[in-house]
C-alpha cells in the first residue's frame, strides 16, 4: 500500500487521483499467482538495450519500466499517481522544493540495497555531460539533488512545478544501483518484479518473477514472462490466432474482423492521449494569419477521418492535445466542418482562395497520406486548394517535421497538461512543431508558466481549460482525432477492469498487472 501523509495529499495537485488510487482498482482476490505470459510485441529493434535513456517503443518500455526496473512514481491504471520506489512526497509552498521518502527494504536483483544514492545517480545520468537522453528536459530543471537520509531525497527546481512527481514516472527515468550502473545496464539489474533471464535484442526477452517484492499481492502475478519481437503486423495477428502468444499490441484494423470472429480472443480498446496532428508553422505565411488557420480548421471533416483512417477506433478532437488520460481535459466542442465558415475566414484574411502544400508520410501515422487526401477533398469546396506532398518515410522527422510549413505528425500524449504543453507548445522548445509563441498568444504562454507553479487543483483546471480553448480557436496545430490504444488478448489471460490509457498495453505494464485466468 502507498502511504501518503494527509498534508501532502491535500497539497499536491494529484490529490484527487491519489484518493481514487487507495481504492486499488485491481481486485486482488480475483488475481492469482502462476503461469507464463507470452506476448508478441512490435517496436523491437536489434539496437534495444537496458539503458532507459534510449527507450522509446513498446518492447523496451514493457520490459524496462514494465518488468525489470522501477521508477520513483507510477501512473496507475486509473490515471492517478502512486508511489513506486518512493512512498510519499511533499512540496514546498512554491512547488520548487520536493521531498521524496523512499521505500525501505527494497533490494536490486543483484542483492544491493536500494537507497537515496541510487535515485540521485540514476537521475544524473540524464543530464551528464554529452548525454543524449530524451528525458533531459525532465531532469535538467532540477538544480540540486540532496540526500537527506538513506531513504529521503530532496529536489530543488529552478522554477515551481506542481507536476514534478508525475514527471518522475516517465519510462526513461529508471532507477539503477549506484556505483554499478554500467553493469546494471549491461545485464538488466533493477528493482522490478521480474529479473532478466535472457535478452536477445530485437528477438526475445524472458523474465522471471523475483521471490518477494514490495508489490506482492498487488501486482506481478506471472511466474515467467516472455516477450517475442514481432514487428510484422500479419505475423503478430497469426501468432495470436494460432495461440502461440497470449496477447499482442497494435492490431491491424483492416483484419480486425478475423480476431473478432475468434471467441477465444478479445479486443481491448482504451481511449487515451495519442493524437494525430497537422501542425502549421505559425511564423510562416500564410499560417501566421489566425484567420487562415481558422479557415483550415473549418475545412477538415473530423468525423470522416475517424471513420476512414481509424476505422472508428478513435474520437474527434478539438485541436487540443489534452486527452482522456489527462486530468483537466476541457469539454470543448470541436470546430465543425463548414466550408462556408471556411470561406468566411478566408475573406477575413483578405483571400478569395488559398493554395497550400501539405506534406505527409506513413512515418507520421498509419494512413497519414490518405488522411491528407481526404482533407484535400473536404477543403476544396471552401476554395482551399491543398496540394498533398508525399514525403519519404525515411528521415521524415529530421527533414520534414518542423521544417516544412505544414505537415502530418502525431503525439502519443503526456500524463499531465503541463508536460504536454511544455513539450510542444512552449515558446522556443525543440519540439514546438507549430512554432507557437508569445506572438501568437501571450496569454497562453503566461498561463503555461503560471499553472505550472500552481498547486490548487481548481485553479489549475480553470487555467488549463482556458489554454485548451485558446489552442482550439487560435492554435497552429490541427488535431482532428485521438486514436485509441487497441490491443488483443487471449481469454487465457485475465485483465483488470480498468486498463491504463496513457500508453498502449495497460501503460506497458501488462507483465505486472495481468494474470492467468
Amino acid at each position, binding site marked *: 500500500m502507498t502511504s501518503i501523509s494527509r498534508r501532502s495529499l491535500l497539497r499536491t495537485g494529484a490529490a484527487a487521483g491519489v484518493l481514487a488510487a487507495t481504492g486499488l482498482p485491481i481486485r486482488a482476490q480475483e488475481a492469482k499467482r502462476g503461469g507464463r505470459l507470452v506476448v508478441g510485441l512490435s517496436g523491437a529493434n536489434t539496437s534495444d538495450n537496458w539503458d532507459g535513456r534510449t527507450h*522509446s517503443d513498446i518492447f523496451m518500455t514493457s520490459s524496462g519500466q514494465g518488468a525489470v526496473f522501477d521508477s520513483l512514481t507510477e501512473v496507475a491504471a486509473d490515471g492517478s499517481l502512486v508511489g513506486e520506489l518512493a512512498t510519499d512526497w511533499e512540496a514546498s509552498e512554491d512547488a520548487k522544493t520536493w521531498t521524496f521518502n523512499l521505500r525501505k527494504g527494497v533490494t536490486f536483483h543483484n542483492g544491493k540495497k536500494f537507497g537515496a544514492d541510487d535515485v540521485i545517480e540514476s537521475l544524473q545520468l540524464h543530464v551528464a555531460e554529452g548525454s*543524449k537522453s530524451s528525458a533531459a528536459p525532465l531532469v535538467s530543471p532540477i538544480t540540486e539533488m540532496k540526500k537527506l537520509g538513506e531513504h529521503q531525497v530532496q529536489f530543488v527546481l529552478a522554477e515551481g512545478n506542481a507536476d514534478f512527481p508525475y514527471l518522475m514516472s516517465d519510462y526513461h527515468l529508471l532507477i539503477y544501483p549506484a556505483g554499478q*550502473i*554500467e*553493469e546494471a545496464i549491461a545485464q538488466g539489474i533493477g528493482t522490478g518484479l521480474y529479473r532478466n533471464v535472457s535478452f536477445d535484442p530485437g528477438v526475445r526477452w524472458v523474465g522471471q518473477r523475483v521471490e518477494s517484492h514490495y508489490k506482492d499481492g498487488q501486482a506481478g502475478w506471472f511466474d515467467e514472462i516472455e516477450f517475442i519481437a514481432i514487428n510484422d503486423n500479419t505475423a503478430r495477428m497469426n501468432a495470436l490466432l*494460432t495461440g*502461440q502468444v497470449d496477447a499482442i499490441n497494435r492490431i491491424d484494423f483492416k483484419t480486425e474482423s478475423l480476431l473478432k470472429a475468434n471467441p477465444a480472443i478479445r479486443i481491448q480498446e482504451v481511449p487515451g492521449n495519442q493524437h494525430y496532428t497537422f501542425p502549421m508553422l505559425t511564423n510562416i505565411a500564410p499560417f501566421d494569419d489566425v484567420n487562415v488557420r481558422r479557415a483550415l480548421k473549418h475545412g477538415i471533416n473530423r468525423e470522416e477521418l475517424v471513420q476512414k483512417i481509424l476505422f472508428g477506433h478513435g474520437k474527434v478532437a478539438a485541436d487540443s492535445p489534452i486527452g482522456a488520460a489527462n486530468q483537466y481535459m476541457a469539454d470543448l466542442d470541436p470546430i465543425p466542418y463548414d466550408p462556408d465558415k471556411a470561406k468566411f475566414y478566408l475573406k477575413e484574411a483578405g483571400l478569395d482562395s488559398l493554395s497550400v502544400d501539405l506534406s505527409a508520410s506513413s512515418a507520421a501515422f498509419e494512413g497519414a497520406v490518405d488522411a491528407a487526401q481526404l482533407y484535400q477533398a473536404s477543403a476544396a469546396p471552401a476554395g482551399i486548394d491543398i496540394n498533398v506532398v508525399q514525403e*519519404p518515410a525515411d528521415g521524415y522527422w529530421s527533414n520534414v517535421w518542423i521544417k516544412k510549413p505544414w505537415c502530418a505528425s502525431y503525439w502519443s500524449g503526456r500524463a499531465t497538461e503541463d508536460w504536454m504543453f511544455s513539450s510542444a507548445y512552449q515558446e522556443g522548445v525543440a519540439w514546438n512543431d507549430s512554432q507557437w509563441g508569445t506572438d501568437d498568444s501571450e496569454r497562453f504562454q503566461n498561463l503555461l508558466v503560471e499553472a505550472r507553479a500552481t498547486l490548487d487543483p481548481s485553479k489549475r483546471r480553470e487555467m488549463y481549460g482556458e489554454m485548451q480553448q485558446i489552442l482550439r480557436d487560435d492554435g497552429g496545430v490541427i488535431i482532428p482525432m485521438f486514436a485509441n490504444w487497441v490491443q488483443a488478448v487471449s481469454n487465457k489471460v485475465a485483465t483488470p477492469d480498468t486498463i491504463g490509457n496513457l500508453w498502449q498495453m495497460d501503460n506497458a505494464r501488462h507483465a505486472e498487472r495481468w494474470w492467468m485466468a
Partner: protein
Amino acid sequence: MSNVLKIILQRLLLGLLTLFVVSVVIFAAVNMLPGDFAEVILGQGATPDAVAAIRRDLGLDQPLVLRYFHWLGGAVQGDLGTSFAQANFASFVGEGAAKGATVMQQIAPRFENTMFLAGVTALIAVPFAVGLGILAALYRNTAFDKGANVFALSSISSPEFFLAYVLILFLAVLNPILPSLSNIYDGMGLGERIEKTLLPALTLTLVVTAHMMRMTRAAIINLLASPYIEMARLKGMKPMHVIVRHALPNALAPIINVIALNLAYLITGVVVVEVVFVYPGIGQLFVDAVKNRDIPVVQACCLIFAAAYILLNLLADILSILSNPRLRHPK
C-alpha cells in the same frame, strides 16, 4: 588435379575482387538512402544537437571516402568493426557495458540460425526436387509429369510471402499442425527447433523446387536419346534402372550446378521468409540494419551473402569437374 587447384585459386582471387566491388556498391547505396543512423534512431526526438552528437561519436561527420577506407582497413584485417547501435550504446554508458559486441559477434548466432534453416530446407528440397525430376523424366508427357510441372512452376511464380501465408493458413490456422511463429532461440531442443523451422523450410522448398526439378528432368531427357541409353534399353534394363544408373551420372554436372545456385539462394534469399515467420536469422538482422542505416552490419551481411554465392558457385564448378571423368583426367 593441378588443373582443378589452379581453377580454385583463380576463382578465389576473382571472388575477392567481387567482394571488394560489392562492398563499394553497398556502402555507396546505403549512404544514398535518405536519413542516416542518427536521424533514424532519434526519430521524432531528433534535435539538431542530438543528431550532431551521435554523428560525431560514430564518425558520421567524416567524408564518405575516408569512412569507407577506414572500414576497409579494418575489414582486410578481419575486423568488421562495431555496429552503430552498439557504438552509440557504448557512448551512452561507457565501453565496459558494451564490450564484446562486434559486428561478427552480433552476426554469428544469426548466421548459424540461417544456416540451420538452409540446412533443413536443403534436406527436404534437394531429394524432393531431384526425385520429382527423375520421376517426371521417367513418366514424361504423362499427366504426372504435367502435374508436377504445373505445381513447381506455379509455386516458383508466386511471391514468397504469398506462399508463406498460404502455408500458414492451411497448416497453422485451419489445421493447427505446425507453429506459424518460428522464434527459435539458444537452448531450444533440436526436435522443437526443427518443428518451429518446418514452415519456413517448406515455404523455401516450394520456391527452390521448380528450378532443380526441371533441370533434373531436362538433363535426363536430353541424354535419353544417346546411343548408350538405347543400348541399355535394348539389353532389357528396366526404365528406372536406365535412368538412375546410366543417365543420371552423366546428367549430374548441370544438376549440381543448379543445386548449388539454389543453396546460395537459401542463404541470401531468406529475408522475406524470415520476416514473415519471425525467424531470427541473418535476413531479419539485415532488415533491421538497413532500417537503421547501420552501415557496418549492412556491409557485413552483404559480404556474407556475396561470399555465399561465390563459394557455392565455385563448389558447383569443382563438383561438376570432379563428376566428369573427361575433365578429371585431361590428356
